């Protein structure tokens, strides 16, 4: 009898090209996504050594990090422009397919991979970007790598990797209306910390996860890296298969049916043992807002900003103190009393069509509060088009939001979209690090609905109360 395995071990074992004691495994990579910021030095390395891209057919590139979201063809930043031109040149020279700014397939790399059906269950997927964990939502083993590793994958289609430890993150119960996938992952990180996943691959399980759409699952897996885990995944099921059917690069016809049969095997066997198991009750999760400078520094919307003394260790107390100074916030302040001057709905965490629908539901028929600048940046040109066709774009525009072209935008402010020093931004992105959205910018991570509500009210509000109105 074969020993029971977790889905993580199944995918791993399927991809080992070579194994030897005292060495990491040589792991085959099925899909390599490439973007303009972390690839130029890798292509240059190939050029210097006269090497080729081994499998251009398993490689796919786009530009997303520093593309302007208005007048996208006018890149005023010469250095950024140079980086995008370099990607075009590299893709041409090495034969790598590229969704450039003219392409209807362009978008944030972690939005378009799934959207185009490139992301599939059981694949090993890498990209020079830490949010590659997003693709784990399909039951793929997907992780971020550095530029040297990008070069290694381009040249060999493999990576030397140590077998990761496995962790089950079980989310039981059911969510209250108004509580979203974003709140779930923020609550998990808040409860277990920003590094509990270091060295592990996470498998998210439980009723709450099972009931989620693919786009909600992507939000969860996206932020695995914010828990320190390079990868997080969810076993594929009918929701996964339904999402993939008919996508551009997904198998077609009979091949798709056969693929489903294979994908159904991708689940953790009864009796398989994880290295660690953690649990959280979904029923207890409230809409969550970060108040500090790590994604774990968060509070339920009906809570208050904590006092440094409430934390156990001296290191934590010091970190909290520094964070509150940076954020310009006082302990004891109610979360609902925090005013915002900026709202950003976008990023690889929350810029898909369902995120925009969720936000639009809150915004419909209302106006952005005076003094608030609010931005919607769809995750891809396809999402943008769909939102325009559904009338969602018009809801945002009528309310006073700026409606932009797709890209990473204000999540990291590599393009002109930034938050000025000292101002607060309700952001659906994934990192509230110091300076992330602009030097001195004060970021609060929230769900799309919470961001939308903050835009309308000018401060954070508990969307659970608004949802009751919407439902009625």
């Amino acid at each position, binding site marked *: 009898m074969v020993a029971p395995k977790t889905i993580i071990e199944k995918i791993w074992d399927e991809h080992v090209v070579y194994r030897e004691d*005292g060495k990491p495994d040589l792991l085959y990579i099925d899909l390599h996504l490439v973007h303009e910021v972390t690839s130029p*030095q890798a292509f240059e390395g190939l050029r210097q050594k006269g090497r080729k891209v081994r499998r251009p057919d398993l490689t796919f590139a786009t530009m997303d990090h520093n593309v302007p979201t208005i007048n996208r063809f006018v890149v005023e930043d010469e250095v950024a422009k140079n980086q995008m031109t370099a990607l075009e040149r590299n893709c041409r020279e090495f034969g790598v397919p590229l969704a450039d700014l003219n392409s209807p397939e362009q978008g944030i790399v972690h939005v378009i991979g799934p959207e185009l059906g490139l992301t599939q269950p059981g694949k090993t997927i890498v990209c020079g970007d830490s949010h590659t964990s997003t693709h784990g939502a399909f039951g793929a083993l997907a992780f971020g790598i550095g530029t040297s590793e990008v070069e290694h994958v381009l040249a060999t289609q*493999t990576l030397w990797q140590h077998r990761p430890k496995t962790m089950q993150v079980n989310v039981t119960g059911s969510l209250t209306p108004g509580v979203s996938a974003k709140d779930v992952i923020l609550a998990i990180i808040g409860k277990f910390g920003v590094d509990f996943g270091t060295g592990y691959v996470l498998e998210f399980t439980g009723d709450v996860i099972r009931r989620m759409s693919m786009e909600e699952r992507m939000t969860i897996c996206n932020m695995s890296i914010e828990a320190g885990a390079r990868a997080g995944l969810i076993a594929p099921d009918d929701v996964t298969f339904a999402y993939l059917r008919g996508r551009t690069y997904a198998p077609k016809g009979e091949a798709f049916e056969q693929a489903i049969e294979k994908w159904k095997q991708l689940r953790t066997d009864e009796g398989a043992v994880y290295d660690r198991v953690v649990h959280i009750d979904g029923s207890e999760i409230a809409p969550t807002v970060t108040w500090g400078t790590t994604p774990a520094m968060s509070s339920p919307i009906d809570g208050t900003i904590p006092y440094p003394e409430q934390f156990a260790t001296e290191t934590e107390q010091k970190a909290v103190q520094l964070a509150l100074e940076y954020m310009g916030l006082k302990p004891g302040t109610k979360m609902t009393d925090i005013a915002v001057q900026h709202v950003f709905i976008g990023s690889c965490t929350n810029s898909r069509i369902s995120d925009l629908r969720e936000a639009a539901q809150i915004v419909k028929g209302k106006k952005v509060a005076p003094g608030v600048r609010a931005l919607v940046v769809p995750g891809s040109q396809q999402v943008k088009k769909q939102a325009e066709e559904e009338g969602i774009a018009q809801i945002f525009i009528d309310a006073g939001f700026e409606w932009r072209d797709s890209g990473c935008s204000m999540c990291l402010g590599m393009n002109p979209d930034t938050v000025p020093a000292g101002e607060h931004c309700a952001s659906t992105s994934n990192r509230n690090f110091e300076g992330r959205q602009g030097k001195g910018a004060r970021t609060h991570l929230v769900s799309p609905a919470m961001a939308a509500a903050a835009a309308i009210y000018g401060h954070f509000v508990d969307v659970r109360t608004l949802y009751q109105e919407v439902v009625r």
Partner: protein
Amino acid sequence: MEPFVVHKGKVAGLDRANVDTDQIIPKQFLKRIERTGFGRFLFYDWRYLPDGTPNPHFELNRPENEGATILVANENFGCGSSREHAPWALADYGFRAVIAPSFADIFYNNCLKNSLLPIKLPKEDVAYLLKQAERSDYELTISLEQQVIFDDEGFTSSFDIDPYRKQLLLKGWDEIDLTFVYEPYIIAYEKARS
């Protein structure tokens, strides 16, 4: 890659936890297409005041830390973005090793690819080194071969490192060249799956 065998150097302390790669090298400097020249942007937003002058309160700007080649920091160093520009910036600034109780996975791997040695030490050792690093004359010696780190005053500690990575660092080998030795296995794997 430059080999790493033994290194003796001055120690600088950065007593902060969860130092993310956005701090190590802020995003405005990621647009360059070269691997070199990132040192002057290291910790940019902490290191410089808005008017561009050095921030006297930032740890690395203290006179006693000038010329340091070993950085000691707290938990979860290098978390966040996968940008390899972070180790490029640390190495270009002059660091040869970073010591912390724990590192983020991607950052740790990226260091190894750039001959910047990441060393995990127990929390008590790191606390001791952070204290010592406040002096201007404190030096440590690191032997990768022996996997030990010590000073001239009796402190000594050993560290773990993956034997495969250790070998690459000691020899300064190009990993891609080595992997090509295994190409027959890659070809066989591709054949078996097609």
